[in-house]
């Protein structure tokens, strides 16, 4: 008997010195979520069945980025601690063809003012999406993935300033 567990899930976690509600807003409110990482605002209709869409910026489109960049649907929403959604990336024809993946955001209060953010991405049958989101490309090629997004989210919330 082999004891090998095949998994097609990635887990990214960061601890942020900010209250849970503030982190929730920074993830779900386009006023905030367009201010870090790719600077592309994400629109969420925060109810089960609600639409999710990330529009690319004019600058990204000038470099050939598609619009929308990402879309999906809200599956579960329990503000400010849990959000489950589908996630389809139009980064390349290959990622678009892999269709909807499943993304879970979990925000836990470690202690007041310290939030643990865990992003669990189910990328079963989506190897191109997995490659794009684990950050093995360079930033200027649209890479960086969840590690970069969470790092920049932390920087913005803790210092008030994200990377340019």
């Amino acid at each position, binding site marked *: 008997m082999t004891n090998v*567990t095949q998994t097609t899930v990635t887990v990214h976690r960061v*601890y942020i010195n900010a209250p849970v509600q503030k982190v929730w807003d920074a993830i779900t409110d386009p006023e905030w979520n367009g201010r870090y990482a790719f600077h592309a605002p994400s629109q969420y209709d925060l109810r089960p069945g609600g639409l999710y869409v990330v529009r690319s910026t004019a600058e990204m489109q000038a470099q050939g980025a598609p619009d929308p960049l990402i879309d999906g649907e809200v599956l579960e929403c329990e503000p400010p601690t849990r959000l489950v959604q589908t996630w389809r990336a139009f980064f390349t024809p290959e990622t678009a063809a892999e269709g909807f993946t499943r993304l879970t955001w979990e925000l836990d209060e470690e202690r007041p003012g310290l939030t643990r953010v865990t992003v669990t991405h189910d990328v079963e049958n989506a190897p191109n999406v997995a490659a794009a989101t684990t950050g093995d490309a360079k930033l200027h090629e649209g890479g960086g993935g969840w590690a970069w997004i969470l790092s920049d989210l932390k920087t913005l919330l803790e210092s008030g300033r994200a990377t340019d």
Partner: protein
Amino acid sequence: MTDDDLVFKALADPTRRFLLDKLFVRDGRTLTELESECEMTRFGVMKHLRVLEDAHLVVTRRSGREKLHFLNPVPIRLIHDRWIDKYTERQVSALTDLKNRLEEAQ
């Protein structure tokens, strides 16, 4: 210890780097799987995984009766953004490119 200290301490051991490399190749493994790749007792591997967990480089999730270990690259990214970007990104990438090219040429 600060978070950065915990990450540097965790990375300062070859067995722990080996475990991270194993998870990089294939994520979400059980202790039993990881142990089978190490020449070390189960208890020793557990201890190393504990240090990696304390540094948040490994995140565990339950899947049924199994506890799966996932590589969390975010702390390394934070160090990258804090240190590498600030001082030396261009030089470092030039050197790593050179290293990669020389090694490929062998």
